[in-house]
Each structure stands twice: as structure tokens, then as C-alpha cells.
């Protein structure tokens, strides 16, 4: 036994020598710690950091690549302690009001005016607006848009043509096409979307809800989800879901993606720039040349795609605000945005990259994406958005699996949202 303990102790001491960590305090040098996302966002961020380091060797980086949920938990808990651990953080736009209201973020208007600059006019308006608080065009700027995600709509051109349908402009027209293809085409479902509880199903539902003229909370702060528009939208959504695959109530992005790539669905009312990049790649996709990505149909209102911006912000407690701000401008500059889009498909937050022909050949849907971004609707600005989203997500799912009728679901969620924001 003694031998074992001695061995363990020696091992631990030896290891602790290099586990103790390296001290990073060399004079003049700055290390920027970035709390960012994983996947393509992470690769883009890493590339930008490497490029910046090459230009400014005195600045080094520590880039954290986290899933959306982990990023949120880690940054909220750390920012609360105000220790200045992070110099740049990414924020999913619906969560931004929480960070902004808590005054955890550095005011970029101040930093811009210190440098005698102004925020570039090329940024896409709805994307930039999510960085402002209050949520107005002249609200204080608390970040810059890093990735301009927007929900898009995909359909199978070959199948639509085969059964004599044209590109859907209105949701109500779409239903017939979905129904026909679902019934007649073997091995193809009419539609596929994310039916999983919480955020996924809400994301799928909102463009329909908005197009039907619905609003979760109106401008004067009343809960208006249980309106005629809301009911019409939900009934439509339920009608549409009849032509979805078995078990759609548990579908997440991965399943939707697989279905679209494998060609087992005629319509996907919710696709994201982040995963449609390989649609024209015959090694991964069996629908090369058969899928068209467009902006959503409208209904009473015009097309209302949902935007999801990843905001890059500087925590107020950061000890390297100047350096962080300089990097932030580099990160969101035209050149960098183009390069990130080119290498990793990171959706640009500026207008100009979308008009670049080299990027358009790679991503033929870019004009549609820019159009969608400019028409984009942001999710309800509320510090309680996460709770609202979860409640709405549960109610929608209950309706989807038939535990509640559309009316009951809306009554329930209306009551719950009222309790949350009271």
C-alpha cells in the first residue's frame, strides 16, 4: 500500500510542476481572452485571432470554443464576479438585454469617440440594432455583430416543378404543395422542421407567427400571443406538421440537416447559413442542384425571417479594453468578414461581402440571405426571453403532439408569459 501511495504522491508532485500553469505577465504584452463559440464560429474567431497576432505580435490570444449553452453559463457567472477574466465575449442576441441592462458591457460609443471614429455604415441595420440598448437605432452601442445568422427557407425545386408548383410567396399557398408532394412522392416527407421543445420549435414557429401578423408582446408591453393572428398561425403550423416525418417532435438541427441533405423532405421552413454550405457538394449531399434557398414566404405581413446575431462585446471589467476594441474592429472589418465567410462560411454582418461574386458562387443563396437579414425580425427584447421561449416552446410542443389544442396551448402560454413578465 505504501508503495502505491508513494508512487501517487511522486506522480502528483511531478505533474503539478507543469500543471501549475505559465504566468503570462511579460511586460508590454497583452493577452486577450475570448469566450467564443465552437464549430465554424470558433474556427473563424481563431483565424481572426491568428491573423491579428501576426500583425501585432505583442497581442496574444486565448480563444475559448464553447457550445451556446456553456458559453452563456460561463460568461454570466464570470461577468457577475467582475474580475475581468474575459476581454471579448460572444452573446446570442436574444440574451443581450440581460448583459446590457446589468451594465456588464463596455460602451462602444465612448470607445469610438475616443478614437475619433464612428461605427461603419456598412453593417446590416437589424444586426447592428441588436447590439444597442435600449433597442432603438440611437441606443447605446454595446457590441458589434460578429455573425449575421438568419433563418432561411429551403425547398426542392425539382419536386415543386414535377407537381406543378411555383416558388412559394405566401404560407397558405405552400400548404398545398407540401400536401401533394407528401402524398405522391415516395420516401419524401412534405416538410421537416425542428420540433424539439424550447428554442428549436419556437424558432421554427416564429417566422410563420410573425408573417401571420402575430406578436408575443406588443409595443405597449401587453401579452398578445393569444390573438387571432396567433391562433391562425398555430393552426397553420399544426396543419403543416401533418406532413412532417414521424417523431418530428424530437427533431433537432442535426436531424433536419440530415433530412435535407438526404433529400427526404420537400420543404424545410427553417434552414441556417451555418449548415447549408455543403448542399452543392456531391460528397455530402444527394440533392445537388435540387434545393433552392430563399427568404420565407409572407402572409398578412411581409416575409419575416428571424435573425440570430452573435454579438461580440467587451466586458466592462476587462483590463485590456483598448486592445480588445482594436481587435473587435479588426474582427468585424470587411476583409476579415469576407475571409471568415470564404473559409468557414461565417455569415457576414456587413452588406458588401454579400455582393462579392466570389462568395456568391460559393453560396448562391447570398442575395436571399442579405434580403432576409435586411428584413430580419429580432426576437422579443426582454431580459426574460429565455423563460418566455421555454414556455412557448413547451406549449407549442404540447399542441404538436396533440396533448393540447391550439386554443388551449395559446391560453396556457399567455398566462405563463404574463406571470413571467409581471
Amino acid at each position, binding site marked *: 500500500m505504501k508503495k502505491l501511495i508513494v508512487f501517487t504522491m511522486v506522480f502528483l508532485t511531478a505533474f503539478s510542476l507543469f500543471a501549475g500553469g505559465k504566468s503570462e505577465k511579460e511586460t508590454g504584452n497583452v493577452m486577450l481572452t475570448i469566450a467564443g463559440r465552437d464549430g465554424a464560429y470558433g474556427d473563424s474567431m481563431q483565424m481572426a485571432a491568428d491573423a491579428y497576432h501576426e500583425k501585432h505580435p505583442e497581442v496574444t490570444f486565448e480563444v475559448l470554443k464553447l457550445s451556446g449553452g456553456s458559453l452563456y453559463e460561463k460568461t*454570466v457567472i464570470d461577468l457577475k464576479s467582475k474580475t475581468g477574466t474575459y476581454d471579448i465575449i460572444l452573446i446570442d442576441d436574444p440574451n443581450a438585454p440581460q448583459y446590457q441592462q*446589468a451594465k456588464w458591457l463596455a460602451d462602444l460609443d465612448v470607445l469610438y469617440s475616443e478614437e475619433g471614429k464612428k461605427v461603419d455604415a456598412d453593417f446590416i441595420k437589424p444586426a447592428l440594432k441588436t447590439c444597442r440598448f435600449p433597442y432603438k437605432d440611437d441606443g447605446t452601442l454595446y457590441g458589434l455583430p460578429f455573425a449575421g445568422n438568419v433563418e432561411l427557407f429551403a425547398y426542392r425545386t425539382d419536386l415543386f416543378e414535377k407537381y406543378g408548383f411555383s416558388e412559394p410567396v405566401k404560407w397558405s399557398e405552400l400548404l398545398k404543395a407540401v400536401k401533394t408532394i407528401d402524398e405522391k412522392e415516395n420516401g419524401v416527407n412534405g416538410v421537416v422542421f425542428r420540433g*424539439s421543445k*424550447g428554442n428549436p420549435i419556437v424558432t421554427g414557429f416564429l417566422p410563420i407567427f410573425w408573417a401571420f401578423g402575430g406578436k408575443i408582446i406588443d409595443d405597449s408591453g401587453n401579452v398578445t400571443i393569444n390573438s387571432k393572428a396567433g391562433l391562425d398561425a398555430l393552426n397553420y403550423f399544426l396543419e403543416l406538421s401533418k406532413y412532417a416525418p414521424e*417523431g418530428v417532435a424530437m427533431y433537432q438541427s442535426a436531424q433536419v440537416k440530415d433530412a435535407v441533405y438526404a433529400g427526404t423532405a420537400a420543404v424545410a421552413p427553417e434552414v441556417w447559413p451555418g449548415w447549408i454550405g455543403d448542399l452543392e457538394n456531391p460528397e455530402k449531399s444527394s440533392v445537388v442542384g435540387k434545393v433552392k434557398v430563399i427568404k420565407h414566404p409572407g402572409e398578412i405581413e411581409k416575409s419575416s425571417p428571424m435573425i440570430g446575431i452573435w454579438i461580440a462585446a467587451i466586458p466592462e471589467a476587462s483590463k485590456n479594453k483598448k486592445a480588445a476594441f482594436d481587435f473587435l474592429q479588426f474582427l468585424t472589418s470587411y476583409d476579415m468578414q469576407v475571409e471568415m465567410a470564404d473559409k468557414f462560411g461565417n455569415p457576414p454582418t456587413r452588406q458588401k461581402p454579400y455582393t462579392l461574386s466570389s462568395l456568391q458562387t460559393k453560396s448562391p443563396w447570398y442575395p436571399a440571405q442579405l434580403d432576409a437579414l435586411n428584413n430580419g425580425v429580432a426576437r422579443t427584447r426582454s*431580459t426574460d426571453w*429565455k423563460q418566455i421561449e421555454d414556455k412557448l416552446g413547451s406549449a407549442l410542443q*404540447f399542441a404538436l403532439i396533440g*396533448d393540447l389544442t391550439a386554443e388551449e396551448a395559446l391560453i396556457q402560454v399567455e398566462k405563463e408569459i404574463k406571470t413571467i413578465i409581471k
Partner: protein
Amino acid sequence: MKFVKEKNGGIFFYMIIAPAVLFMIWLTVYPVINVIYLSFFDYDFFSGTKNFAGIENYLQVIGDKLFQRAFLNTMVFSVSATIAEVSLGTLLAFIFYRQFRGKKLFMTIVIFPMMLSTMVVCAVWRILYHYDIGLLNYLVSSSGLEPVGWLINKNMAMISIIIVDIWQWTPFAFIIMNAAMSSIPSEIFEAAQIDGAGSFKTAFKITLPILTSQIFLILMLRTIDTFKLFGKVYALTQGGPGNSTETVSYYIYREGFSYFNMGKASAASLCVLLVIASFSFIYIRQIFQED
């Protein structure tokens, strides 16, 4: 007991327990008191404002339909998984009590699932359970039956999660029982053999009474762990379909780390604590009894 009577015997025991006690005090007193304290406050994590709320958090949690459902689900999960794991584990331990060829190999296989990362376990079961391309449904439909909605049918999802937990954690009960049985003095068995007792039945009869306190211990530890069910739900169903796999830990996680309603999360934790503690009381009494 005889030790105690001895002069100055106590000092030794105080000295050997002190490090653990002091360490636990340093590490846990503040966090636990903090949980109790926050459960009585309406605490806005972002702005930092705290307002005394009395038992409002508790009332909200108990009155929340989602919590009630989550609680029932957790009970179902905890009771069935615990009972299944402990009985299967004990049974396995009896099988492994005798010597046989390849025992070591079989033993390694049996405890393997427990060593896998929970995330990987969930990932492989998600493939196996997949409605369209999963192997289980492939087997089911090739034997001419309707495919099963393992994770997508609201009546089936919880059962599927229970199966995964049994698969992963039966080895826990097995190892403890195996360890406990191997410390039973062999004389007892030799005596039994001389008496002509040789079947498993007699083995059960002789050993089970000796193993009671171990069995109660595993029951308690597994009850606690299964009550904390979170990872599997998070990875397999996110609480769906509907609310069929919502659990209290998932509820607390959402209140705590998603909405940062620390007051409500604390209150919910303490409600759960109270229930598990009263549950465990049965076991604890049994374990303490012999004194």
C-alpha cells in the same frame, strides 16, 4: 466499542477524523447556507437586487405544474432504476462469487459500461434508439413488428432512459456487492458446504442477511444519484416529448443556469433534498441501527 472504554482512546479518533471534518466545513458550509438563504429571496442575479420573499419561492415551485410533473417522473425513474440496478447487481455478484474459467475477462466486461463517459453512453444509445436508422427498430421491424418510438413516444421515452441507466450503472451495485461478499469470512461458506448446502438458494439465505447494510447503502447512494438524473435527459430527450422526461434536476438546472433564478432554483433544490432525505432516512436508520 471496546476501544472506546480505553483511556485517552478518544484523542486518536478525534485526530483522524479532524482533517475530513475541517475540510468539509471549509468547503461546504458557506455554499449550503447560501442555498438556504437564497431560497427565501427574490434574487435578480444580473442586477444583484435581493428582496426578502418569505416562502414565495417554495410556493411557486410546489405550485408549478412542470415541477410536479418533473417530480413524478423523477420518482418513477429513481425507484425503478434503483431497484432494478440493485437487484441485478446483487444477482450478478452471486454469479461471480464462484470461480470459473475466464472470470477476470467477464468481470471486466461487466463493469465496462460504468467506465464510459455518460455523454458517449447517451450518444451510442441515441443511435441504437433512432426511430428510422436505429438498430433496435431495425431488429424490431425485421421481426415483423411495428417500429417502437423509443425516444419519440411519450409513453416510452422514460422507459428508454431507465434502460440506459440500468445498463450503465448496474455495475456499480455489482462491484459493491462483489466487494462486500468477498469480505465475508469463507468459514461461513465452508460450514454451509459441510452441511450439504450448495445451491444458489442457500447462498442467498446465508449471505443476504450479512449483506443487508451494504444493500441498504447502495439503495441509498443509487437513490440519490438517480434523483439527480440530468445528463441523460439533456442528451437524449431534453425533457420531451411533451413533459414526459422532465426531471427535477433538469428543472433546477433551467431555473438556475438558464434563467438564473437562483432563489427558485435553491427552493426547488431544498424541496427535493427534503424528499430524498426522508427517503434516505429509511436506509440511514437501517445502517445506524446496529449501534
